[in-house]
């Protein structure tokens, strides 16, 4: 039943940023917490991420950007998800995201932004409390 279903997460690196230490650490921690994680690898366009999310039927998309391109790429992913009619996926962002950018990203539909110093425990808890299985 519902509690037996494993949470499926797409860990994604949108844009050209090569910093993948954070996303891989988070991915490992989510796996250790019993979730299934699919990692896209680097250099994904928003269209590729949305495509992968649909094909894999994930419950969560966790994206990481440290290059400053979040202001374009995160909302673009949300826009494409809406276009494809995907509404039940929990979308999270992480990386170096200035506080003043967060309200606009949340308005675009990103559920939460996790900055430097966040523990993997906080992310796991947030997903468990907010995912719509």
């Amino acid at each position, binding site marked *: 039943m519902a509690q037996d279903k494993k949470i499926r997460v797409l860990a994604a690196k949108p844009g050209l940023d090569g910093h993948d*230490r954070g996303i891989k650490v988070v991915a490992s921690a989510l796996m250790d917490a019993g979730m299934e994680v699919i990692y896209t690898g680097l250099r994904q366009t928003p269209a590729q991420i949305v495509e992968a999310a649909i094909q894999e039927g994930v419950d969560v998309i966790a994206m990481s950007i440290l290059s*400053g391109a979040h202001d374009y790429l995160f909302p673009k992913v949300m826009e494409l998800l809406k276009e494809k009619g995907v509404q039940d996926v929990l979308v999270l962002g992480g990386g170096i995201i200035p506080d003043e950018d967060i309200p606009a990203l949340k308005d675009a539909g990103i559920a939460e932004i996790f900055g430097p110093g966040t523990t993997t425990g906080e992310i796991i808890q947030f997903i468990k409390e907010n995912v719509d299985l």
Partner: protein
Amino acid sequence: MGESRDDKALREAVERWSEGLKEKLKKRPERKESFINTSGIAINRLYTPLDQKGADYLSEVGLPGEYPFTRGVQPTMYRGRYWTMRQYAGFATAEESNRRYRFLLEQGQTGLSVAFDLPTQIGFDSDDEMAIGEVGKVGVAIDSLKDMETLFAEIPLDKVSTSMTINAPAAVLLAMYIAVAEKQGVEPARLRGTIQNDILKEYSSRGTYIFPPRPSMRIITDIFSYCAQKVPQWNTISISGYHIREAGSTAVQEVAFTLANGIAYVQAAVDAGLDVDTFGPRLSFFFNAHLDFFEEVAKYRAARRLWAELMKERFNAKNPRSMMIRFHTQTAGCTLTAQQPQNNIVRVAFQALSAVLGGTQSLHTNSMDEALCLPSEQAVQIALRTQQLIAYETGVTDTVDPLAGSYYVESLTREIYDRAKAYIEKIDDMGGAVAAIEQGFVQREIQESAYRYQREIEKEERIVVGLNRFQVQEEKPANLLRVDPAVRESQIRKLKALKSERDNDKVKNTLEALRRSAEGSENLLPPILDAVKAYATLGEICNVLRGVFGEYRQVDSLGR
């Protein structure tokens, strides 16, 4: 055989001392059961001359400026000249970056270090679809020789040394630099500087690759060969452990994977018919300065010895300069906290001191606000002042390699040397660094270390001041430095103007000549230089090479 009278007396004294401690430790135990550094090396309570037993001073440590260079690559080190103080910087546009470089030179900085934006690093012009959202964000956008002319306007290229953090398209940016110099009337032979040009760590740690490993290695050996003849003072590669460490490796892994990559480059060049002593002296290295002070000092010393031995014994180098690790150091960006960012000033100072005590040739000190945004001018100034304080005020520069002879530092140096050497042997058995990266071995090793480190922080086995202890409630800083989103539009306008002004037939012909060279085996530098001078764009040049060489797709997954 047997031990000397002094050794015996010392051994007995240490045994008596340890025995006497047992009772005290029962009442008052130490802070931890065991003390282990990031590389997994157990740290003893006490080091004495007994720990140096069996070590041969002359062959393992030696004298500065002499093989195996453990104590430094120059005989007088900082008594002769300080390290080059070189802050990595690059902003959105060539105009703005040019202003920052001139500011830094006026502040007493002695070398330039250019940060390029990601589209430039991956060979896309600013008008490419892949570049949307990234133009000018982490460095300067360079689309053509025009931008490069602006970047170095009024900076005499015969007077400064310039380091460029550019890898996959390094040949193109180097060609642009040569072309700008020629316009200033400066001969290529007088140019001093460095291109990073280290593609192997891009596959394993940093991510700005374009082409697959094999053609990438060819471009690199073409650069070695071209520069040996035409740009002899140029450092043709900066073999980088920095990003391997930032990606999460330990200190031992940083040394091991960096030198394993170095071996692959030297082997590729030797296989291409180059004499090791023609390019060996121009190889440079780039290391990280992380938190564990003595581990870092020992790391630099161990790396120098190991590389010297590899070059001499494996590659039969004859010129001592081929055996020297000359290296740049940057303090560890991954250790900066967004919490209480002013603490980062102090972190950076300790890290910088370890690099100086480790004998670095140049240094970048991070700015306190880099966990939040691009550094502000004030933060950069404090970072540079930190280096100047170490150089001019602390006195640590008055003698060569001052920590040599410390029982602890010498033991650690030997331990790191041994462990890195064992890793390199393992990588040799896998078929070398390229194979180890293709098999995902290096990536997995780094990733496991990164995850372990994070778990240690979360379990509070590792204390990060201001993050998991000594926290305060604080206001998040406002007015962070931001990149104007109009940069992309202005770059696109410049590109349009360029394409209407330049001689497009000439561009076409030079690109066609480049394609033919890429399909053949001749050196790629001359045709790239011709295309650059005809104002072909970076994207156009890289696309020709993509057409011939193909593109690399990341193989590694999560390694589980």
